[in-house]
């Protein structure tokens, strides 16, 4: 942790108190954000390690590096760790936690103790999951499909289920805290139309967390009951419907994709505005598109089930609804692009990630159209095409957004600048490595290579080798920022209060901010993104 690193004289949230207790019992949203940052980074590298092993196994067609059941555990735990312990909490729990009160001019979240409680729930869930990993793991895939998970898998499904159940509550409480904070804690003058787009997207995310997560919770609980107490709600031998689980699961898990991508869009809006020095084109439309995504996101879940045996008619309904959710996503991409028109664009690391995000998200979104299309989905469903598509959204979108945001607000979080040259190099590595890893998988998918295959026919090898090669570059791209962020906490250049010349309340306080965020309560008299009133900083201009 960054406790010892800060040498600025001014009292801030980092140097106010020292010692383990001051961190573990803190109710300061900024410190809790850092606790989350440390814990999700830990899980990110565990999930990443699993991913590398998966890619190494797939280097050759034969199953030769690990056993089949080990491989199955690897991809199951890669998915569960990355989704429930990294992506879901990533931007909301780290950047959201840090920024929501700062951006709306509040001293803290509405329920600081619940905020700490959600971190503890996350840690309890994470500990149970780690225990599950070291004592044998789980091999159900991240999707827990019944009846495999309830009656056939002989791995630690109950433990994984309970762990994710608890993690779900952590996520619910974070969302609840944000919604209440955004409604009740805004500074005087901070009207809804003056809110940063980050807050709008975070609000939309929280709605999904509140209304979707409980359905996953009860579904997993019923799976656990079915294994532990022999209840028979999903059991086909008692007349249960194997598809019922899928309906309930995807009711949460499709909107969960928006829990992961909406916050990344939130970051993009801030970064693009700052480094084009412009108000975001079509503020109202971008804000409303976040809400629209949150609502429409709940109407499309059965597009994961087109070949699962649902009725023909409901497949038609869910297909057409799926296209509705594509429209607000498209609106966002068009608006970010339009924002660059006649801007004053500088190519800092966060902006490079933003460019990467727009590109990769566009490709991920467009391939989503393939999957929402009934005729095509029959062929590419459950193949590597799907894998590539959601990694373009989840890694190309959400992780790029997360890393971009982390660089953008790092001066505010740590009070130090990260090394810009290394930052740009890492952004480039991530972009190149990512495309090399996942683009071949689109081709593999249309060729017909099914997902979750431990061994595969030899004609798929060349594309798999490309993919594995890419994954090593990607890995370096991810390790680099961790190294230089840690380095910068001690050796980085001291950051000014507003090094990017950015609009937004969070830049009006000191770097790092004091414990209660603002020395005096801010009063907002300006519109969001008032870049015409903020001078561009000299150093960003000249740096090459």
């Amino acid at each position, binding site marked *: 942790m960054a406790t010892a690193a800060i040498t600025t004289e001014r009292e801030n949230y980092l140097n106010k108190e020292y010692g383990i207790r001051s961190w573990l019992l803190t109710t300061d949203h900024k410190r809790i954000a850092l606790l989350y940052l440390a814990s999700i980074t830990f899980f990110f590298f565990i999930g990443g390690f699993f991913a590398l092993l998966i890619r190494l196994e797939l280097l050759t067609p034969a199953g030769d590096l690990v056993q089949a059941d080990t491989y199955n555990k690897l991809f199951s735990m890669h998915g569960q760790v990355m989704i429930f312990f990294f992506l879901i909490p990533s931007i909301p729990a780290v950047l959201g936690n840090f920024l929501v009160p700062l951006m709306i001019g509040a001293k803290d979240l509405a329920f600081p103790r619940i905020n700490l409680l959600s971190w503890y729930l996350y840690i309890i869930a994470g500990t149970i999951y780690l225990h599950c990993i070291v004592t044998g793991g789980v091999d159900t895939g991240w999707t827990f499909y019944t009846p495999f998970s309830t009656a056939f898998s002989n791995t630690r499904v109950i433990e994984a289920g309970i762990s994710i159940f608890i993690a779900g509550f952590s996520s619910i409480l974070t969302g609840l805290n944000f919604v209440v904070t955004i409604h009740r804690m805004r500074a005087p003058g901070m009207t809804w139309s003056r809110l940063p787009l980050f807050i709008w997207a975070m609000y939309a995310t929280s709605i999904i967390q509140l*209304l979707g997560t409980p359905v996953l919770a009860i579904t997993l609980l019923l799976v656990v009951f079915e294994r532990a107490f022999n209840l028979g709600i999903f059991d086909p031998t008692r007349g249960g419907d194997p598809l019922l689980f899928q*309906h309930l699961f995807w009711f949460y898990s499709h909107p969960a994709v928006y829990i992961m991508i909406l916050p990344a869009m939130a970051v993009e809006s801030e970064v693009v505005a700052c480094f084009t020095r412009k108000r975001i084109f079509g503020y109202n439309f971008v804000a409303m598109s976040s809400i629209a995504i949150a609502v429409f996101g*709940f109407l499309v879940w*059965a597009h994961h089930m087109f070949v699962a045996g649902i*009725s*023909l*008619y409901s497949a038609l*309904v869910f297909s057409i609804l799926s296209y509705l959710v594509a429209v607000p996503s498209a609106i966002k991409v068009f608006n970010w692009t339009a924002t660059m028109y006649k801007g004053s664009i500088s190519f800092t690391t966060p902006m490079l990630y933003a460019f990467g995000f727009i590109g990769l998200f566009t490709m991920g979104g467009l391939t989503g159209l393939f999957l929402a299309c009934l005729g095509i989905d029959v062929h590419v469903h459950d193949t590597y095409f799907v894998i590539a598509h959601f990694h373009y959204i989840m890694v190309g979108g959400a992780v790029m957004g997360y890393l971009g945001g982390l660089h953008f607000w790092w001066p505010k979080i740590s009070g130090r600048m990260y090394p810009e040259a290394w930052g740009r190099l890492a952004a480039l590595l991530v972009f190149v490595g990512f495309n090399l890893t996942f683009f071949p998988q689109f081709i593999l998918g249309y060729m017909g290579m099914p997902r979750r295959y431990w061994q595969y026919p030899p004609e798929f090898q060349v594309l798999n080798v490309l993919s594995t090669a890419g994954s090593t570059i990607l890995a370096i791209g991810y390790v680099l920022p961790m190294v230089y962020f840690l380095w910068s906490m001690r050796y980085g250049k001291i950051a000014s209060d507003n090094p990017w010349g950015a609009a937004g309340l969070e830049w009006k306080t000191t770097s790092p901010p004091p414990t209660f965020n603002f020395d005096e309560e801010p009063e907002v008299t300006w519109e969001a993104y008032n870049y015409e009133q903020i001078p561009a900083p000299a150093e960003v201009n000249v740096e090459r």
Partner: protein
Amino acid sequence: MSEHIMSSKFYYTIWIALLCLTVITAAVSFVDLGPLNTVVALVIATIKALLVVLFFMHVKYTSEKLTKIVIVSAIFWLFLLLALSMADYATRLLS
């Protein structure tokens, strides 16, 4: 939320109404109304739930619109879950 205090008599009235409805719903279930049995049971349950929400939980008297929005959204989302799932189950025999 509930700035003004209700008389205790008012609460007793609601309570009596709830008890009566409970007895009615149990009694009606023994009468053969065909498919209407289910409808009657659900209508009575909804009336009871409304009584509790509006009067015991003070939603009728709150000036806060947001509470009502939250309740309506929760019910709407539950409806989405049930309706869109049933869209599959109800049409399976057709295809």
